[in-house]
């Protein structure tokens, strides 16, 4: 599996993924997010002061598992994340999502100071067909 296939298969699974982060106290957290592939990175709109943002500031490791299909196919992507609050970057990506971010941040990229993005650089991925019972595929950055 190459990164293009990771993007293709994850996108085909639907709009929802579950993003896991770990706090400074080593406690895991997982929440549903609506990710968007932009180039070779995954972007997720988040609250600037959310648990996700605080966890990423303390520990940039994230794992994302897209909602599994009815057949049990699923993909998990691991990577490192950074919280993006720079307005120019927010403006750049704001309209690249497949849903209207203004519905959640009516001030738009320039007047929504509480909104931010998690930019995730994927490092590896695991595709499981029928929860792994029908096989698996892996991708690692640089491979």
């Amino acid at each position, binding site marked *: 599996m190459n990164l293009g296939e990771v993007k293709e298969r994850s996108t085909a699974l639907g709009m929802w993924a579950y993003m*896991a982060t770990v706090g400074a106290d*080593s*406690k*895991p957290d997982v929440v549903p997010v609506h990710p968007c592939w932009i180039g070779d990175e995954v972007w997720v709109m988040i609250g600037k002061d959310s648990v996700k943002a605080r966890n990423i500031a303390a520990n940039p490791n994230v794992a994302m598992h897209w909602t599994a299909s009815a057949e049990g196919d699923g993909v998990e992507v691991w990577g490192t994340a950074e919280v993006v609050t720079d307005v120019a970057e927010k403006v750049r990506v704001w309209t690249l999502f497949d849903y209207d971010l203004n519905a959640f941040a009516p001030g738009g990229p320039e007047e929504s100071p509480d909104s931010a993005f998690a930019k995730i650089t994927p490092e590896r991925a695991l595709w499981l067909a029928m929860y792994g019972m029908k096989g698996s595929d892996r991708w690692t950055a640089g491979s």
Partner: protein
Amino acid sequence: VTALSLDDVIEESKRFGRTAFVATASPDGEPHTVPVACTWIDGVLYAFVLTNGKKIRNIRTNPRAFVHYPVSEDTNWDSLMVTCDASVVDTLDGRRALWDRMGYDLSAFEPGGVESGNHCFIAMRPTQATVLRFYGLKGREVWRA
């Protein structure tokens, strides 16, 4: 914030179905999350998993787990999140005690039956649970141990 009892949490979980996303963390701080079938037994959440899987390796070194039931239109975009202290049930006696109580046929996933050590159980003792109504915009309910 409305206070819940653990019985309220268990009842609430029935709306979401059996599968939930379980997050664990490795000793070096790498998270992992997968959808897992979870069953409440005597106030503890149990999952039947591969003994050599990542979840088990993580829990043996970091006993914290976080469970998030899937959010969907079917449940009005409500969330149910459960923070847990997790442990591994991998003894034969432990597996026997749980084998017939999960609410589905475990032998479909472990043909070797209860005697096989290839699968074991995660016991997740809840310490806190939170229900967010419509992403929290319509209220928040909390239970604490």
